[in-house]
Structure formats: C-alpha cells, structure tokens
C-alpha cells in the first residue's frame, strides 16, 4: 500500500515529541499542516486526546504505598537473615572440613593403636573407625530429613 504525505504527517504527529523531530521534519510537518485541513483536524483531535490522557487522575493511595514499603522492609530483613544463616553454614562447613582434615589421621592412628593393644585383626579396628567416623551423620541426617532443614524451614512460606 502506498504511503501518502497525509499518512506520513499523521504518523509524525502521533509519534513525535518535540525532541524527536529533526528540523527538516518539523518544517515539512508545519508546511503540510498549513496546506492540509484534514491533517490539521487530525492534529487537533490527536492533541486533544493526548492532553486528556496526560490529565487523567489516577493515583496510588498512601495506604498502598505504606503497605508496600513495610512489605519491602520486612522482606529485606528476611533476606538479610537468610544471608547471615548461609554465611554461618559456610563458616561451619569450613571449620568442620579443617577439623576433619586435622583429626582424621590422628583418629586413624588411635584406632590402629587400640586395635594392636586389644589384639584384634586390622579389619575390626578399621570397621570401628569407619563406624565412629560416619555415626554422627547417620544419626543427624534422618533427624534433619524428618523435620526439614533449618534453611528450608526459614526460607519457605514467607513469599506471598
């Protein structure tokens, strides 16, 4: 379909704020509006609609703003606490890892010494060592699984 000068003028008028038109476009549009009564009517009608749109009163009430601010503050606090818990868990993991790295060889030697002292075969004291090593995990994991983890129980259910 052929675009006429009228289409172009109306589109320019509809789309452009004063800052969007080049000097050439502005001069052309002004000249066209002087010549063309139909486009002038269109420009008047469009101008009225745009002015009416800008004057539409639609405001947020203060209760909504206050409620939003309180919700945002409360969520910010939750996120901060969650971040602190994650930090605590990371530090604990690091501490446990370091402690395990240091104590495992010592504990191994202690079990070996006790095995020799008690006169049991090596697989017996090694099995004892393995049980001693994983016993806390075996005991704590089912408990945590049964009641949900600390992070999950505090992190969920707070998002509306």
């Amino acid at each position, binding site marked *: 379909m052929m675009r006429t000068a009228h289409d172009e003028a*109306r*589109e320019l008028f*509809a*789309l452009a*704020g004063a800052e*969007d038109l080049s000097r050439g476009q502005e001069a052309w549009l002004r000249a066209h509006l002087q010549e063309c009564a139909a486009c002038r009517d269109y420009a008047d*009608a*469009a101008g009225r*609609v*745009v002015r*009416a*749109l*800008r*004057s*539409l*009163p*639609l*405001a*947020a*009430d203060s209760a*909504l*703003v206050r*409620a*939003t*601010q309180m*919700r*945002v*503050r409360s*969520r*910010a606090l939750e*996120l*901060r606490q969650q971040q602190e818990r994650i930090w605590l868990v990371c530090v604990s993991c690091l501490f446990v890892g370091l402690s395990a790295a240091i104590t495992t060889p010592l504990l191994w030697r202690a079990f070996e010494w006790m095995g020799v002292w008690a006169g049991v075969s090596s697989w017996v004291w090694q099995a004892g060592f393995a049980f001693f090593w994983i016993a806390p995990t075996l005991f704590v994991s089912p408990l945590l699984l049964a009641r949900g983890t600390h992070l999950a129980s505090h992190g969920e259910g707070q998002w509306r």
Partner: protein
Amino acid sequence: MESEVSAIARGLRRRDPDLLDRLIEQYQHRLLRYLVYLSGNRELAEDLFQETWIRVLERGHQYDGRHEFSTWLYAIARNLTIDYLRRKSPVSLDGLVDDEPHAPLELADTRPMAWEVVQQHEQAERISAALAAIPAEYREAIVLRFQDGLALEEIAAVTGAPLGTVKSRLYRGLNLLMGQLEGAQA
C-alpha cells in the same frame, strides 16, 4: 559526582531500605497507572505494584545503572503482569485483559469544585473506557508514551519490541483511541 542511576544501582545492590522507600514514593503514581492500564483491573494492579517492588528488592543486583531506572522498573512490572495473566489463563495478553468487563477503570478522586468535578470525572471515565477498549499492546504503548512520558527507545526496551513495532502500536493505538472517543461522543 555520582550520577543518580549509579547511586540507585549501588543502593539496590546493598538492598538499602531507605532508598527503596524513596523510590516507591517517587514512582508510585506512574507505576500504578501503568499497571492499572496494563492489567485492566485496579485491585490486581495494586497486588502487582507490591510484587514489583519485592522483585526490585530481590533482583536489585541485576540493575546495572546503565539505563534509566524507570525502564528497568517498568520491564519488571510488565513481566510480572504477563506471568500473572498467563498463569490465570494461557492465552494472549490481549485476550486475557479483554476477559475483564469493559467498565471504566476506577479513578482517584481529586476533589476540586462542583460542576468541574463532574465534567472532569466524565471525561476521565470516557478516556479510561476508551483505553480499556483498545488492545492491551496498544494501550501499553500509549500509556508509556503519553502518560509516563517515556521515549520511543525506552518503550522498546520495556516491551522488548523493535522500535518500528512500538511506532506502529502508538500510531494505531492513538487512531483507535480517537475512533473510540468519537464513537462515544456520537
């Protein structure tokens, strides 16, 4: 001196509640107006208004401060609205918005004087009804351009549509709106 957008970006990374309070107050009317016209429902718009600010808090670190904050804010509000409307019923945004009755959108009462109030309110209701009757994508472009004063490029960034599409939506939307208003007056 630090520019405003980089100060906002820095504050959002720190999840500064005072900054968020200030931003909520600064953008309250513009954001709510956009959401009301996008969703076609004041109550839903108020819920989305709150969710938008919660999302701003949670995703604040993603705002890089290279674009206007309002563009990023509108994009978040838009995505939340579309997500909500898609969850409600998986058809087009336009169809969903049109699910709502075409009652004029509820307007704030500004209370000036006597007959002027009536006249202004009638005109506002007429325009709101006309806006509600045009397709959502046109309505969105018109609200962003003529009410919130965004540049064409900013509208393209908010909506994720090419500049040419934004121009065409504005032009067609304005024509449809004028047609609706003429029809209502006839």
